[in-house]
């Protein structure tokens, strides 16, 4: 036994034991433990395998600077949980990741033996021929961390908004002082801390605060305008002072894994502390090697002594505190400090505690594979020695955590010589840094700095904040006078010096990247993945920068830093999504008739913009094709009815509506009489079709414009921009009325008979209500607007009624149509009917590259209007490039062979550039064979030719015909 739980100490609840399993072992911990501290307390040193080489790994840090993930199998499956910050749960089952079958016995560990073959960029270099994509699935299978949870996953997270005047990040001495100063002024304060309890370093390093933390916490908790979040990390500093916060296992909602906050703060105090960095040395990634701060944190926070025989390896004073604490807890401690004058004033204190100090020494290599057993070291006089140990604790200096300041894009990182690290330089507009986050390390100074930051934040929100009583804190050992040591060069070529444990990046990888010409730190990072792993380089990045500087002969500050981006800590997508899952993320839109369709067994489709519409209504034993063909035949031979409610509808009102229509449509709308409508094609000003639809003149100054279902939002934006931006002098208002009106479209040769049976109080004869005519009236007692528009190629009446009458109207239509065999029709039948009729569809033929001439609509283009949207660009484009894809009909040589919609047409079916594509393909009920529409280069002049669709394993010949298969003279439509 080497790591163990102490009888006293830590902020855990020894009265609340928790049992859990890890990789099949039955273990126990206490409430207040993280998964990591519980494993440490059980002396489980090997807890995972490295990402690439599958080397044994243990805990290196005690917080977000660590990278060991575990998956939780129960309760609530969750993958890739950072073990050092995940609260331990009763009866939970955890497994290691990147391992098989488990961390102790891992087949993938064989990768270590081939590590020389796996340098940076290895995959891309090795698997280039014949094709990366051939190897990709295998490599992706071998890489990666945990498995994605079961598909039955349900959200165990929620989202919340928050706002406050002052948001304080971190509840260490600086953050607590800032929050207390701000809170006493009466302003609203949020204090966000990622610890189990506030205190920060005062807790983690066991600094005696004389009760100041608990008094401050009690005072803050009693104030109604203050909110404390614990186990919560600010992970993003976004525009306009929006901060995103991930709260783990919220205290008020134990059933949640995460709560993700979006908090708008007027002022932010960033007191996020600092991260210790290691001194990389050969095999310094072995389990049992960790940051000195981690050993100290496990000790004070969880009452876990990480080893009985500890070697501390340091280049600064801060490790002395850890050495004294570990010795006091019972460990035999040797402090190896590279500085020849390392003892200084602390020598006596160290000696008194029994700490062996080796000044001017250097640790060279860790010995032991699944766990460190000893270190090889060199004394100041050059003598080599081996020190047996079960814990190696490293301190290479401290990096202020100014990540959030950098994310704000208002701070720059600058080199600080005495601290041998980067600090932030910034203006003091919307945030300020305080304490260790800006390089002030001594705890008492942090508290003062925090208070002053709190006062400054208050001034920025026009408040006053008197000074608070600051605690008397004894914190003699902090990381000043750092002697930079970015890594210890290995004595043997084969020894690996890891600088980034998350990404398995070694000093050799950095050297290789530089030799291969990746000479900027941003490129080195991307090529080697240094700093791109789970920990995002929190502890290792400054070493990487230092090493790149050393290898290129530049001063470290000249190398520069990589860009800090959110998230500051790993955040699950599920936590961001919260309850916004499936339809709660993006709700379906239903017409008043959805229930009716579902009751009839309809298979529902999305018709565009999330509108649910029936695809087809299968009878018992029918597949989709049989149902769709039956429905289409009903429309061709008798009568059908479909729910046209989702169609986009806009009411245009005002004296200048006519001008607007003439600008947006390619045709002349000036001659349309009241009570009549006109088909129109709408282009954007780049001369390409955006949508098509009809507009009906309800009154001189009032029109109703219909758009495609899926294009409704686009058309709305288009019209609003014209009215508000481009022609603000026109008096027109655009009112979307899509959902106000429901629509039952009765279509087929017997449609008028059905309408007659509905007791209309208006004349429905061909002369009174001709094609493209309209009438307002009643069917029985139901008010309707009836439009003579057809998208099926048959006589058709669109019956529009206010949505509240939709169900009643539909039932009436079904009852009145029964003697005529009226059949409800879905999208599939609609598609068959419109292809037979040769009507274009937005999203099929209107694909964003076609103009009206291409689709055979040239006759609609006004010859007299001097201007309309798209006119000039269309003319310019046609002049420059007369070879256009044109709408044609296509008949497969085999009448039963259907072709995938979207299939490319290529000359002779060769693997060359396409000369068009199949836009729609259906089994025609009118012709009882497969028919298709397509766009073909110069298609109209190629009627009669045979062209070829190129499908994955086949080339399908098709004969080019005119793009109308039914009722070419439109006599039925106009009947």
């Amino acid at each position, binding site marked *: 036994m080497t790591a163990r739980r102490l009888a006293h100490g830590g902020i855990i609840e020894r009265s609340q034991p928790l049992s859990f399993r890890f990789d099949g072992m039955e273990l126990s911990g206490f409430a207040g433990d993280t998964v990591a501290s519980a494993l440490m307390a059980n002396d489980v040193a090997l807890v995972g395998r490295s990402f690439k080489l599958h080397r044994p790994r243990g805990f290196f840090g005690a917080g977000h600077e660590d990278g060991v993930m575990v998956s939780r199998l129960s309760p609530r499956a969750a993958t890739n949980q950072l073990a050092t910050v995940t609260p331990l749960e009763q009866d939970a089952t955890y497994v290691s990741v990147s391992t098989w079958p488990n961390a102790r016995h891992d087949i993938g560990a064989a990768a270590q033996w081939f590590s020389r073959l796996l340098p940076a960029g290895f995959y891309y270099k090795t698997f280039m021929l014949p094709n990366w994509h051939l190897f990709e699935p295998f490599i992706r299978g071998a890489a990666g961390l945990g498995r994605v949870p079961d598909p039955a996953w349900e959200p165990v997270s929620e989202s919340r908004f928050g706002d406050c005047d002052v948001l304080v990040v971190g509840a260490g001495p600086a953050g607590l002082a800032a929050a207390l100063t701000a809170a006493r002024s009466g302003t609203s304060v949020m204090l966000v801390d990622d610890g189990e309890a506030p205190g920060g370093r005062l807790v983690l390093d066991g600094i005696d605060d004389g009760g100041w933390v608990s008094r401050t916490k009690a005072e803050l908790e009693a104030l109604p305008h203050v909110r404390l979040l614990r186990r919560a990390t600010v992970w993003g500093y976004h*525009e306009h002072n929006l901060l995103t916060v991930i709260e783990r296992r919220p205290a008020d909602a134990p059933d949640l894994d995460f709560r993700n906050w*979006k908090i708008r703060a007027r002022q932010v105090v960033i007191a996020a502390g600092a991260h210790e960095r290691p001194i990389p040395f050969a095999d310094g990634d072995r389990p049992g090697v960790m940051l000195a701060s981690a050993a100290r944190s496990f000790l004070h926070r969880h009452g876990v002594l990480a080893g009985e025989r500890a070697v501390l390896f340091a280049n600064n004073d801060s490790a002395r505190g850890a050495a004294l604490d570990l010795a006091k807890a019972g460990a035999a401690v040797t402090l190896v400090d590279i500085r020849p004058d390392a003892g200084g004033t602390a020598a006596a204190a160290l000696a008194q505690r029994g700490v062996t100090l080796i000044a001017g020494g250097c640790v060279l290599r860790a010995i032991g594979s699944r766990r460190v057993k000893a270190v090889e070291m060199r004394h100041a006089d050059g003598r080599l020695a081996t020190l047996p140990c079960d814990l190696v604790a490293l301190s290479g200096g401290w990096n202020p955590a100014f990540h959030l300041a950098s994310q704000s894009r208002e701070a720059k990182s600058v080199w600080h010589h005495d601290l041998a690290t980067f600090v932030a330089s910034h203006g003091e507009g919307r945030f300020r840094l305080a304490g260790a986050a800006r390089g002030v390390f001594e705890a008492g100074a942090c508290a003062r700095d925090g208070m002053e930051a709190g006062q400054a934040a208050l001034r920025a929100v026009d408040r006053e904040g008197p000074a608070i009583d600051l605690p008397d804190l004894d914190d003699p050992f902090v990381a000043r006078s750092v002697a930079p040591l970015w890594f210890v060069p290995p004595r043997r070529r084969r020894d690996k010096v890891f600088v980034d444990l998350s990404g398995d990046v070694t000093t050799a990888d950095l050297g290789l990247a530089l030799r291969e010409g990746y000479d900027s730190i941003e490129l080195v990072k991307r090529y080697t993945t240094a700093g791109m792993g789970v920990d995002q380089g929190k502890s290792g990045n400054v070493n990487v920068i230092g090493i790149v500087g050393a290898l290129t002969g530049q001063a470290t500050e000249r190398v520069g830093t990589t860009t800090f981006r959110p998230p500051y800590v790993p955040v699950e997508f599920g936590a961001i999504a919260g309850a916004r899952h499936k339809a709660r993320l993006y709700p379906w839109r239903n017409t008043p008739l959805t229930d009716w369709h579902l009751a009839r067994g309809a298979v529902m489709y999305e018709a565009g913009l999330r509108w649910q519409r029936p695809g087809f209504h299968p009878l018992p034993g029918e597949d989709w094709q049989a149902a769709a063909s039956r429905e289409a035949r009903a429309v061709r031979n008798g009568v059908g009815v479909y729910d046209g409610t989702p169609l986009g509808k806009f009411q245009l009102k005002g004296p200048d509506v006519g001008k607007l229509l003439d600008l947006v449509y390619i045709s002349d709308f000036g001659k349309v009489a009241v009570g009549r409508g006109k088909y129109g094609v709408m282009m954007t000003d780049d001369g390409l079709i955006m949508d098509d639809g009809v507009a009906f003149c309800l009154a001189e100054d009032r029109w109703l414009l219909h758009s495609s279902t899926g294009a409704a939002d686009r058309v709305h*934006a288009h019209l609003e921009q014209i009215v508000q931006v481009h022609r*603000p002098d026109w008096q027109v208002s655009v009112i979307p009325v899509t959902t106000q009106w429901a629509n039952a479209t009765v279509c087929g040769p017997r449609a008028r008979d059905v309408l007659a049976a509905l007791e209309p109080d208006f004349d429905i004869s061909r002369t009174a209500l001709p094609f493209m005519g309209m009438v307002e009236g009643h069917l029985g007692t139901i008010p309707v607007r009836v439009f003579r528009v057809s998208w099926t190629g048959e006589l058709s009446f669109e019956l529009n009624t206010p949505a509240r009458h939709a169900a009643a109207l539909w039932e009436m239509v079904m009852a009145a149509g029964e003697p005529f065999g009226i059949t409800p029709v879905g999208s599939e039948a609609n598609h068959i009917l419109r292809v037979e009729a040769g009507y274009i569809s937005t999203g099929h033929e209107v694909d964003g590259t076609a103009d009206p001439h291409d689709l055979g609509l040239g006759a609609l283009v006004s010859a007299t209007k001097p201007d309309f949207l798209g006119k000039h660009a269309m003319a310019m484009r046609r002049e420059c490039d007369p070879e256009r894809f044109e709408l044609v009909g296509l008949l497969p040589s085999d009448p039963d062979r259907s072709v995938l919609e979207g299939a490319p047409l290529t000359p002779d079916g060769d693997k060359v550039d396409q000369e068009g594509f199949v836009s729609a393909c259906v089994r025609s009920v009118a012709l009882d064979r497969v028919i298709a529409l397509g766009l073909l280069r110069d298609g109209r002049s190629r009627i009669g030719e045979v062209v070829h669709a190129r499908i994955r394993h086949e080339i399908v010949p098709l004969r080019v015909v005119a793009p109308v298969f039914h009722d070419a003279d439109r006599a039925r439509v106009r009947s």
Partner: protein
Amino acid sequence: MLQISCPWCGLRPEGEFVCLGEAVPPRPDPAALTAGEWAASLANRANIRGLHAERWWHVRSCGRILTIWRDTVTHAIAPGPDGTAAPEAAP
């Protein structure tokens, strides 16, 4: 998420708006332009790093289209170089 000031509704979150891109001038009369000028007016955008005049549509609220100056680096929404809150008379 930006906070955008709507002349009708006050300071509102970005989620209520749709960005309509650079605030190009109202559509010119194509007859008054050469083909090249017309093509440029359709396609060329300044894509500024720094203060950028852009239109936002308050579609999930009042429907107003408004114009703001936004710094594309810091996202600060500020008065423009000429001191005006918006680069043109609000529509």
